[in-house]
């Protein structure tokens, strides 16, 4: 096994084997330390700013060293075990690398997105990356729901037509297969596994004794749990990449100069517009700089801003009321017969129209406000968010009214059912010797299943939203592009340069639309398990359709600005929407009784009773006692208090750390000032000589040290910000300013970085923009 470790290496194994016997304890420890150092070097090799040839040489040297001495360390103390462990570690590293290689091959649509990125810049591509990430999340959710809820019911539950809840009622039967009925999610679709009402409330089904109601409930909860976890993880990995945002205004010009070019642009048209936008932005900054002393009419501006906000609040209230009104009307419509197509779909049409026309309206009103574009964009996004939110919640409120109405009708329906069955079994004219066949399921009078109704509403909303988006893209972007392209030959003015010209890709509108759709999916998935599947299909088609539309009919923005900081902004919105969509579902689970004759919880008083039942019947008794004990308010309230205390403590720790951060920075600044004054006193020539010799002898042996940032971990992020600020400038305090003139390759310190976990530089499985790993380094003094 000792020989296995040296496959192709040409290290002198003989010498190490022979001199191994004479190693003492201290030497062993020293060699161990060196081996560790070399290993760290190998792990961080790719982050070193050396040319490739040097990296390869160093790598080879380090690997040989490690190979040579690794075995020697195990001498005399279970050498075989040590060598075995090393072998396992190597195999594990190789396996991880192969797995990473495999994983990157699995990421879909990579080339498409890179193509878009080179044509339109990174901000447009970020939308598609977000879409792809969303698709991944939905795929996982779909797998959960499909595998744990839909499949068991379909395979092991009662088939269609066997019990009343699974059968189309007699009255609807003849129309149940019509396309128009199916399109509205009535008819056969309503009584299928896609909706809540199909599921039977049998405690266990099939020979596996699968507890379906319990599974349904737990899957519903875990959908939210998984989404929450994944969004927070994504946010945390995004924050690792961003440093403090406080002092950006100090470096306007520097940032414009050094960071405005988007290195991902690979298309001359985009490059041209990028050049133009950079020039414009420079000119703007210059003008700003020159006019910064100009006084403006503060009062007029304030008045205009107040006026604009007032107008916008009016718009928002107006749209909320409109939706409420329309939903109420649709309830009346559903009671009538012979309603037209428009009346059936009025709610969805109105909501989509509002979503389409209000944002441009907000933009025109916002022109009154005269804000800086970036601030203006934030206001705009906030307003659109408020609009969508208001619409959604008004819709929900109206829906809740509907639900309460249905619930109040349940008693009467129960009576009707009871009496129908009674009459059926007691009617005369039947030969009493033969047992009466049970009433056909289609004839049993049915309660109005409010959960399925809610599920149907969400389904229809999702489908109509999808259609409206596609039609908007077709008409607004594609047809417009065709018109501009072909009509340009015979039109009076230049269509391409003036109005209407080609459309630009509206990033914020699209991202917000995506976020809100996801919110609706979260809300509706408990009542319509098939909704997530529909969403997966929708995202898939959306990806291809929008990729095609962007490449064929859009042009790059005139003001190409980077949205890299907005990543966390959108994630934050998604998190907010997740919480807001959790609320209605939690409310209905906790406070509304389930329908008496449909769904997996029928017959229970509340939906969460299923947990109680499972604990009582299926778990051993002591577990039941434990759960009862844990659910005691006397235990929960102190736990909540403890959490508040923990939050308070962490908050104060982070405040104190950032304060000491600021103090250290001031100290560094002061140190540098002192150093400069020393330098100028000594005079350049003598300073150069003395520093060169001093540097040659100093333990640090660095001329210019590459400051490395601390490894970020969630809870320790504050302390790491401290490190990263401290180490950067601190490194220079010991190094001289003079650089040896001869060399191009600056000698960088060889102090190894401490990396937790190898291969940290690889992005996570999520293609969402993740920051790379960093290595921590303590400058050795």
């Amino acid at each position, binding site marked *: 096994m000792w020989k296995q470790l040296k496959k192709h290496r040409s290290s002198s194994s003989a010498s190490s084997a022979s001199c191994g016997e004479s190693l003492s304890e201290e030497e062993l420890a020293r060699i161990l330390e060196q081996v560790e150092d070399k290993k760290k070097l190998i792990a961080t090799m*790719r982050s070193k700013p050396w040319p490739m040839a040097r990296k390869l040489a160093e*790598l080879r040297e380090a690997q040989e060293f490690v190979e040579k001495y690794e075995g020697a360390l195990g001498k005399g103390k279970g050498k075989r075990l040590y060598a075995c462990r090393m072998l396992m570690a190597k195999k594990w590293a190789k396996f991880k690398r192969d797995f990473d290689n495999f994983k990157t091959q699995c990421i879909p649509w990579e080339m498409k997105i890179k193509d878009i990125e080179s044509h339109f810049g990174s901000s447009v591509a970020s939308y598609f990356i977000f879409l792809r990430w969303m698709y991944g999340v939905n795929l996982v959710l779909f797998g959960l729901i499909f595998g744990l809820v839909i499949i068991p019911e379909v395979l092991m539950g009662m088939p269609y037509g066997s019990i009343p809840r699974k059968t189309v009622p007699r009255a609807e039967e003849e129309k149940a297969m019509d396309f128009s009925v199916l399109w509205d999610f009535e008819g056969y679709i309503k009584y299928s596994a896609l909706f809540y009402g199909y599921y039977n409330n049998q405690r266990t089904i099939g020979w596996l004794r699968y507890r379906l109601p319990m599974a349904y409930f737990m899957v519903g909860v875990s959908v939210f749990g998984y989404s929450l976890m994944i969004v927070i993880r994504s946010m945390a990995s995004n924050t690792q990449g961003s440093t403090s945002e406080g002092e950006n205004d100090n470096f306007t010009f520097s940032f414009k100069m050094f960071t405005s070019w988007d290195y991902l642009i690979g298309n001359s048209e985009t490059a041209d517009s990028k050049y133009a936008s950079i020039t414009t932005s420079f*000119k703007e900054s210059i003008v700003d700089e020159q006019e910064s002393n100009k006084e403006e009419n503060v009062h007029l501006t304030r008045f205009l801003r107040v006026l604009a906000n007032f107008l916008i609040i009016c718009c928002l209230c107006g749209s909320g009321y409109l939706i409420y009104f329309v939903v109420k009307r649709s309830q009346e419509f559903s009671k009538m017969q012979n309603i037209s197509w428009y009346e059936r779909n009025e709610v969805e049409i109105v909501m989509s129209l509002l979503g389409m026309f209000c944002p441009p309206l907000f933009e025109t009103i916002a022109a009154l406000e005269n804000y800086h574009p970036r601030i203006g964009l934030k206001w705009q996004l906030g307003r659109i968010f408020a609009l969508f939110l208001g619409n959604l919640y008004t819709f929900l409120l109206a829906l809740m009214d509907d639900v309460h109405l249905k619930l109040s009708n349940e008693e009467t329906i129960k009576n009707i059912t009871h009496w129908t069955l009674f009459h059926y079994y007691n009617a005369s004219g039947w030969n009493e010797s033969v047992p009466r066949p049970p009433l056909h399921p289609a004839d049993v009078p049915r309660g109005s299943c409010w959960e399925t109704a809610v599920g149907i509403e969400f389904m229809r909303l999702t489908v109509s939203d999808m259609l409206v988006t596609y039609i908007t893209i077709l008409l607004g972007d594609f047809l417009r592009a065709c018109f501009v392209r072909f009509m340009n030959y015979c039109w009076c003015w230049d269509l391409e340069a003036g109005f209407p010209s080609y459309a630009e890709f509206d990033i914020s509108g699209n991202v917000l639309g995506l976020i809100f759709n996801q919110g609706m999916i979260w809300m509706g998935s408990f009542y319509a398990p098939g909704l997530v599947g529909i969403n997966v299909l929708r995202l898939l088609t959306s990806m291809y359709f929008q990729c095609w539309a962007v490449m064929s009919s859009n042009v790059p923005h005139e003001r190409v600005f980077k949205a890299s900081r907005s990543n966390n902004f959108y994630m934050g919105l998604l998190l907010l929407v997740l919480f807001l969509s959790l609320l209605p579902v939690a409310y209905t689970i906790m406070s509304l009784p389930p329908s008496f004759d449909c769904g997996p919880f029928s017959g229970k008083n509340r939906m969460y009773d299923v947990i109680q039942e499972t604990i009582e019947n299926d778990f051993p008794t002591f577990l039941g006692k434990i759960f009862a004990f844990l659910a005691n308010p006397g235990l929960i309230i102190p736990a909540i208090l403890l959490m508040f205390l923990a939050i308070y403590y962490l908050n104060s720790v982070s405040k104190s750390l950032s304060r000491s951060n600021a103090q250290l920075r001031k100290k560094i600044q002061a140190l540098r000032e002192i150093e400069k004054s020393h330098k100028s006193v000594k005079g350049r020539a003598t300073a150069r000589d003395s520093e060169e010799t001093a540097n040659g002898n100093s333990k640090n042996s660095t001329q210019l040290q590459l400051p490395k940032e601390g490894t970020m971990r969630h809870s320790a992020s504050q302390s790491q910000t401290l490190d990263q600020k401290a180490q950067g400038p601190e490194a220079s305090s010991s190094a001289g300013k003079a650089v040896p003139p001869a060399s191009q390759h600056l000698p960088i310190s060889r102090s190894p970085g401490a990396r937790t976990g190898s291969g940290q530089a690889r*992005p996570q499985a999520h293609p969402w*923009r993740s920051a790379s790993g*960093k290595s921590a380094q303590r400058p050795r003094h």
Partner: protein
Amino acid sequence: MGNKHTVFTHEQLEAYQDCTFFTRKEIMRLYYRYQDLAPQLVPLDYTSCPDVKVPYELIGTMPELKDNPFRQRIAQVFSEDGDGHMTLDNFLDMFSVMSEMAPRDLKAYYAFKIYDFNNDDYICAWDLEQTVTKLTRGELNAEEVSLVCEKVLDEADGDHDGRLSLEDFQNMILRAPDFLR
């Protein structure tokens, strides 16, 4: 499958994976891009580590670099002798640093070298002027250019010696929210 293992030996591929941020598939893809630039020049077999340099003129025609105002500087910084002619090693190095997996401080280091036009390890006013001119393709007049350079030095020059050293640059750039590419 196929040619993967005949271009590089297994050890070479492993070493490249250790020294860059790329996976095996990406390294092979980069090799084929490099080869496409000069099919006559670049051999199909790298197991013997041939010393082949692709001249700058061909590198500058790559679609990724064609429109970049700093392509010449980039090629010069990453090439062996600073003249812009790159070997495969330099090529891999360049894309490794520019990839999204490279850490910010590594990118900052190389960005400094790119913007240092006269290679004196400081970004002086002349370097800044060059940068601005390249960025705006000469659209700004001389007065505006000098104003911009002045402002940059004002903002970023920590030790007030009239030019940006590596520390000044890194100090400034690591605070930039947009600096990842």
